[in-house]
């Protein structure tokens, strides 16, 4: 199991992997410890969301993706 992600440490430009396998890039972080704003880079479950920006719930974040 991966480490619990501290959402307050997520800065714009960092990439995250979500529990459903999607990958998103942080756009902004309100630092409330609950949500981040991120843009979908890929989504195996729902490809239609790719490119869109959404609020991502902290407990939906599986891990930080290492810089490519």
């Amino acid at each position, binding site marked *: 199991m991966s480490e619990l992600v501290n959402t307050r440490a997520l800065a714009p430009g960092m990439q995250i992997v979500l529990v459903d396998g999607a990958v998103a890039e942080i756009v*902004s972080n*309100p630092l*409330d*410890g*609950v*949500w981040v*704003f991120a843009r979908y880079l890929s989504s195996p479950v729902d490809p239609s969301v790719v490119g*869109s*920006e*959404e*609020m991502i*719930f*902290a*407990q939906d974040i599986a891990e930080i993706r290492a810089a490519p």
Partner: protein
Amino acid sequence: MTATAGSGYREGLVDLARGQVSREIFVNDQIYAQEQERLFARAWLFVGHESQIPNPGDFFVSGMGEESVILCRDRPTGQARGLKAHGEIHVFLNSCRHRGMKVCRYDEGNTPVFTCPYHGWSYGTDGKLVGVPYFREAYHSKLDRAQWGLVEVAQLANYKGAIWATWDPAAPSFTEYLGDFARYLDLTLETWDGDDSGVEVLGGIQKWLIPCNWKFPAENFSGDSYHNISHRSVDLVGIGPSGGSGRRDMREREMARRLQVSFYERGHQTGVYVLPQGQPTPPAYAHSPVVSEYFTHCEEQRRRRKGEWGRVIGSPGEVFPNIALHPRQPRTIAVWHPRGAHQTECWRWYFVDKAAPREVKDFLRDYYIRYSGPAGMTEQDDMENWNYAHAASRGVIARRHPYSYEQGQGSEIENYEWQGLRIPGTVMDITEAKSSEHNLRNLYRRWAEFMEAENWDELATWRRNDRDIVRAAE
């Protein structure tokens, strides 16, 4: 006694004919509970000043009665960025729609969202519900987010930079609520020279608790000059801006007519000083040549812009029900937030002309805080009085004996005029009488009306008078 809504306030607990007010209205928990519904849920209340939230996303957590509210200026959230103009001012109930947790527990700041720390519901600064954890999984995407935004006040008014709000959609507009009292409120909210550059809040907001009913300070600021004896020690020390004894510059007051002004149908009241015609305002703020010159210049400009009205100098007053004005020396607004029948949370804002020189603002800050607030020498006197007056009024024996409000009964003057200046409102000239409880009676007159009236049709009595005038003309 029983405090049943709809009867017993006028000619009972508040007996203006005899000039008596029952102690029950200060110490009775049942009456306190009714005040929340009948006064604070219906009246216009002061929330803050636009200078506290200059940028999109800025917020200030304030209060309306017992409710915590968020005053904020909206900004784009997530994908909405750049799609529409933002910067609109809102006032929201600071309570999550899901389980009621406060969505903002900071005093002030800047944020893109207000997130509830309990279950994670998140709201944009426009109040819309933008984040629901497990929206797809747990709610199957069926929760109607548009129905679950933050609760917003029914009406909001930005009056000369001051933000006012009411929960009651049936309340009259704020300017109608004020009536001609607006001219007196302007003495606090307009620049001292009367131009359009505006005022701003100086420093932080002072907040503190006093063990007394909120109506003690509300009454005091309505125009109780009878209690000046309790400030004698401060006057002996001399904390004014020009040295010597006293807590203010007094020359301008000593040459003026001293008036109490009430608005019977609105419940607002204030003291004012009216300078003689053709007399310039005497110099003040002698401790600092820069400040003294600034105010001399402002007074000249004010006379030029305001004409005869420039002869009016503001004194403590009260916008009904719980907003205290202090237009000059110091210049401040206080709100007496009810926190149970036996406790009041005082919040005090200080104002300066936005365009005033730095040295003027610094000087005024020092003067203001040695006068007012929890550490202010004058306000400490007041707090001691309210504290012990309340405590000594709670017992079953004490409650049987009403307070006396008989000063000046029957001496009120309509259409008061002095040396070519007509003064709006019903006036008591206390230049020779020294003191009156005219304004205090007005506070309780309106209080009793609010406690008995079922709706704004009953409360907006001036509309009936207008209709009577129209009918008479027909």
